[in-house]
């Protein structure tokens, strides 16, 4: 695997009008995104995600540090940008153009033209399900429609790298599923995707690796298996006697929820799952299911960002 996007000690400081008012948007970011992976770039508002993306695209320039895209140092040059598709957050497009005109405009900026461009526009519009609104002015589009046309323009030039800032914002659940499928297919085709999002569930579903940023510092980075640790085991059992319930609780098991004949029992780390199952058997508790539970991305995010915030307050 080769690094498609690589940053080394990337730092961005926005200078304030007066001394001491400088804003450290990003501090010594070391990021490596491999070819053919979906990288979830997470962080609370103001953590430096968009600043990173703007620097990768050459829209703003780093205060210090290095960026390499596809192994090239000239990351903001037209030659490198030709290989990148970008969906900005909020999807900003010329309001007085029609949907297909927006695509034609951006396609021409990528150097596409003639029958090839028309074919690509038809393909992209079909892919994002915007055939019905291709002739309408963008200013009359809903948020979801803007997002779809934004994704279409990002995909238009068949780029090697896709940088998507909040790609599923404003979309309904069905559209989210469609977009997720499109992104997964793109990864399978060998494209590299960097997705910045607050939709942690979406990111958890499709990302290979994630990085969590807080206060301009990358707090953690890795695959979901590496980061999301196993937490406990959940037993689902049927109706049981009060005596059996008391014995299970005495053994350290926790009854989380009980709805009629369906009881959820948590097996904490310190209790052996085999012992818990044996106890259920001896007490004639009907076992319905056994499921390991691991930390969700949301829980990891809250834990990491919370710790970073506390550390900042203390310092």
């Amino acid at each position, binding site marked *: 695997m080769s690094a498609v996007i690589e940053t080394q000690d990337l730092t961005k400081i926005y200078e304030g009008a007066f001394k001491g008012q400088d804003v450290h948007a990003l501090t010594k970011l070391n990021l490596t995104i491999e070819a053919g992976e979906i990288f979830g770039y997470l962080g609370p508002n103001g953590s430096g995600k968009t600043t990173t993306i703007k620097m990768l695209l050459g*829209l703003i*320039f780093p205060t210090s540090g290095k960026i390499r895209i596809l192994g090239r140092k000239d990351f903001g040059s*037209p030659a490198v940008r030709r290989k*990148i598709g970008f969906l900005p957050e909020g999807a900003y*497009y*010329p309001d*007085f153009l029609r949907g297909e005109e927006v695509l034609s405009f951006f396609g*021409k900026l990528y150097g596409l033209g003639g029958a090839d461009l028309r074919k690509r526009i038809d393909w992209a519009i079909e892919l994002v399900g915007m055939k019905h609104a291709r002739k309408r*002015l963008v200013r009359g589009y809903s948020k979801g429609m803007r997002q779809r046309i934004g994704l279409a323009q990002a995909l238009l030039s068949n780029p090697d790298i896709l940088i998507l800032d909040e790609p599923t914002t404003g979309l309904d659940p069905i559209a989210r599923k469609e977009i997720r499928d499109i992104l997964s297919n793109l990864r399978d085709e060998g494209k590299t995707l960097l997705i910045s999002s607050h939709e942690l569930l979406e990111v958890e579903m499709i990302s290979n690796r994630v990085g969590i940023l807080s206060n301009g510092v990358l707090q953690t980075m890795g695959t979901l298996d590496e980061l999301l640790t196993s937490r406990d085991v959940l037993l689902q059992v049927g109706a049981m006697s009060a005596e059996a319930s008391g014995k299970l609780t005495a053994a350290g098991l926790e009854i989380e929820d009980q709805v009629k004949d369906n009881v959820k029992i948590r097996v904490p780390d310190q209790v052996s799952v085999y012992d818990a199952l044996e106890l259920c058997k001896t007490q004639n508790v009907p076992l319905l299911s056994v499921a390991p539970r691991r930390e969700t991305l949301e829980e990891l995010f809250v834990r990491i960002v919370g710790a970073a915030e506390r550390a900042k307050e203390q310092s």
Partner: protein
Amino acid sequence: MSSIISSVRSTWTIAIYTWRQGMRQKTLIGFLLLSVLVIFGSSFLTAFLTQTTGTDTQVDIEAKLLKDICVTTISIFGMLITIFISASVVPGEVQNKVVYTVLSKPVRRFQYLLGKFIGVQLIVIINLALMGGLFFIALYAKQRIMPTLLLWSILLTYFEFLVVSAFTFAVSCSASSPVLPTIAGLFIYVTGNLIEYLKDVYNRAGQTGQWFDELIGKVAYGLYQILPNLQNFSMKTQILYLQPNDPPKDVQFPNLIWPKLWRGTSSRIGFSGARSCSPS
């Protein structure tokens, strides 16, 4: 070679889509419709005058009235369109963040600004051609003489708009909203048309011998030297009093674009582009 062609193509694409976007803006369409209405209205008004008086000398007065109204209309509405569009294309895209989407494509900042400026000129030229064409037809219908002098006037009017547009656009490249460039454009238009008064102020200022008086005179002289004299582009008097097919007087091409302003404006645009390209 291919990179130059690609660069020119991208700039032209931005220009064409700026024009297409601009021509769909309601404010601009409103200005254009209003000016067309006034030009049409003036034809009816002069026809009404002919019916009521009907003498030979009145035909001349009628044509003069038509010319007066049309030249003024083109000048005012054309300038409003020019300032409005020059002041809003770049700040508008900065405000609604379209600029980020465009500049994330294989486009340099200089190409973006140049494309926008050419797009603005296309809008100005097409609006002027529409208004001027209508005036041309109305005048020809009235006098049955090919009004070639009018074509010169339209050409010069465009150069006047070009100077104001370039200045407004240059200011707009550093502005976050269209308000400041609009004010700057109006300032240049108004002072550029009153520049001879500044010369008068300078000539009269030294007569009292007081220091404050002299200071005012020097300021007036400084402004006279810096600001463009937009009256150089005006052929209103010739249009009003000469025959429609007379050759133009005192039109010299080297004087059409005021060199200092042009140099200053183009370097300003270049500076804006260079500044936005440099590491921040």
